[in-house]
């Protein structure tokens, strides 16, 4: 029996009004030919353009381009099972948490289903109201927990704050969520690559301009023939000074074995490559333009030659 590779699941969290729905719609519009499956609490919270909907099947909406959208109500596990059993299986799941959910707890839920694998945990925050929310007597503690559980924090609605506020917010977040990487954005316009993990490369020529990449984000890609010490490289890439938000490597080690390196925020793991190896090793990364230093990245790669 062929055991298919687990489907990566990215968790999108954040309190009410942070922009989760806007982000999900943005990602659906820029799926780039990937078969995405989106889980939302209920459809009422995700107004989907009717023109995109091809069919309705109970709690499942089939969208143009092979994507599906599923409402989970109070049975998240049931919905996750339902989606992982689809044929063909989705390439990537996006799970939009309810505003009061703890995204870290939701990510742990994924360990109950071996067909799924935790991918990025991204928490959105409304830059304008974040500090107020985080001090709220009812939900302040929850908002802070949500942030602390993130791999990536998208500081949304940055167009609504002035230039002096942003660094102050970033400093506050560095303290409130020391493990997370923070990326400022507006209207949830993020590079889809931040949320799409293993095996979900877009089909050539299908991706339009998904984000204001030239201003905020930068990406890099290396191909090389030499072997690397993947574990050491994993440690090196988590250095925040590199400005990396997400990276993926297909790497050959000194023994000739192939592995996959996945970096999300400050979390990096290395696993054996399940499929056939490529001709050359490859490392792709995406990060914040403001702190981008491809030369330093190349140097780290050199340092980790096996």
């Amino acid at each position, binding site marked *: 029996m062929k055991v298919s590779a687990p489907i990566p699941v990215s968790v999108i969290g954040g309190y*009410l009004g942070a922009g989760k729905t806007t982000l999900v719609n943005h990602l659906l519009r820029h799926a780039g030919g990937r078969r995405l499956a989106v889980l939302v609490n209920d459809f009422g919270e995700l107004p989907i353009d009717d023109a995109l909907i091809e069919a309705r099947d109970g709690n499942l909406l089939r969208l143009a381009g092979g994507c599906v959208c599923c409402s989970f109500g109070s049975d998240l596990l049931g919905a996750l099972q339902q989606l992982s059993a689809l044929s063909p299986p989705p390439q990537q799941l996006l799970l939009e948490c309810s505003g009061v959910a703890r995204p870290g707890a939701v990510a742990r839920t994924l360990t*109950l289903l071996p067909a799924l694998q935790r991918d990025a945990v991204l928490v959105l925050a409304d830059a304008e109201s974040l500090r107020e929310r985080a001090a709220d007597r009812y939900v302040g503690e929850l908002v802070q927990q949500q942030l602390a559980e993130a791999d990536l924090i998208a500081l949304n609605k940055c167009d609504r704050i002035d230039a002096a506020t942003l660094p102050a917010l970033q400093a506050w977040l560095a303290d409130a969520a020391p493990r997370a990487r923070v990326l400022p954005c507006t209207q949830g316009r993020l590079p889809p690559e931040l949320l799409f993990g293993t095996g979900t490369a877009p089909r050539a020529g299908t991706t339009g301009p998904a984000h204001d990449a030239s201003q905020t984000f930068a990406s890099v890609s290396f191909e090389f023939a030499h072997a690397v010490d993947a574990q050491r490289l994993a440690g090196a890439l988590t250095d925040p000074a590199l400005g990396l938000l997400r990276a993926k490597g297909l790497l050959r080690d000194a023994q000739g074995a192939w592995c996959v390196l996945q970096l999300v925020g400050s979390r990096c793991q290395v696993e054996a490559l399940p499929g056939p190896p490529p001709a050359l090793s490859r490392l792709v990364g995406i990060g914040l333009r403001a702190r981008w230093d491809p030369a330093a990245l190349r140097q780290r790669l050199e340092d980790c030659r096996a």
Partner: protein
Amino acid sequence: MNPSRPLATHVAVRDGRILGVGALEELSGWGPYRLETRLADKVLMPGLVEGHSHLMEGAFWRFVYCGYFDRRDPNGRVWPGARTLAEVLQRLQEAQAALADPTQPLAGWGFDPIYFDNRRCVREDLDRVSTTRPVGMIHASGHIINCNSAALAAVGWLRSGIDHPGVPLGTDGLPTGELKGPEAMMQVAGVLGMDRTVLAGDKAALRLFSRLCVRAGVTTATDLASPLPDEALPMLLRTTAEDGFPTRIVPLLRLMGGPEPTILRAAALQAQGSDRLRLGRVKIVADGSIQGFSARLRWPGYYNGAPNGLWYLAPEQLQQALALALQHGVQVHVHTNGDEATDAVLDGLERALQQYPRPDHRFTLQHCQLADAAQFRRMKALGLSVNLFANHHFYWGDEHYRLTVGPERATRMNACATALASGVPLAIHSDAPITPLAPLFTAWCAVHRLTASGRTLGEHERIGVADALRAITLGAAWTLKLDGEIGSIECGKRADFCVLDDDPLALPAMQLKDLPVWGVVQDGRIFAAAELPTD
């Protein structure tokens, strides 16, 4: 409950309603009559109203009762409490003897290991019942399931690599078989045949539930709450309308997700009910449970230092739901266990009422176990009623004292006396099947505040028998806005009576819980508990 006729010898009934109360001579003025003498030596009180129960109580009886305390089933059989884990396992083994198929699941309910000296049940214990069939028990609290290896294997969890707070692991890295919280429980519950459609109550469960009502003297009971799917409505309407159906059912629609669809659906449902199926009310759950440490508590939080609980609905959405309900004239009951959740309702309603003022909205706080005096004063000011969980003291009071909220707050939990002193309309409830459906027992709990170990938990919050009886009749009727129809024996009201062998006001108060219930009269129809159908 009728000040003009607090005690009477006769009641006249016509068309299921009360024509009059008084002496036979007074009533004969209504014209020719037939004198019903079957109940001549009984005591009639207003039909009891269970303001917070679940049809699930009827559904559970198709599974094996594994509780610590004696409990009467819909057929009237009393199942003795299983006092040790060995007794629980033996009971499951006995039930298993009736199952031919070695892979057919076996499920129990009402399990309460807190009385077993903290001896935890693990999957190896239940493997002694069977290694071939899934075996599991849901706890009395409803928040935990214990299951065997076969049940874990059936959902693919008999493996390493699980990392979930609701699925504790043993030293071997495999789940222990204890599953905590809805998410961890739901899959195994499905394997055990306890999936949610079963527990929400089908026709068979509804009938069993109504028999329990007759045995408890209950003529009106809530189902708090139900998803009330459109396809279930015809069944509910048909079954409750049957000649032999003895109970008025008040299902509240559970609010899930964004508030607007639920509130609008409830408004539309108001016109679709019948006399015995009252529709159009909404239940909102704001937080979790105190003994599960998922209730939202104000400072200083849990006595044992557990982190604060969960919001089941964001306070903003709660306020939005309350505002919509006020706007559309939909009555709302809100589950709050922790005092912070209660504060969120008080704050939310205060703002919502400024937006949509509505006199006599009759919104009700359910459980509301930790409210303090200031919160009761705010309830009064905002026109809220309260339905307190009096039974909790008996079953979990010792745990609250020792572990969850500590001695001081444990003695003020479910503050019935404070509610009355503050002028907040009061009901008390069982939350059946969490605790047994038996309002006279619930009244006894509010009167004595005794825990299972015999401690009086909050002498100052005890209430009198008359007040407690009012809380399980007119008080609960008030919270459903049905107090003009039921809850007292008065001219014009429904002929709903609880038929007792003795007078609860004349008995020593300690005997209130043991007072035999002969049956009920509902809409003028007589139902003797001893003559109920059995199966």
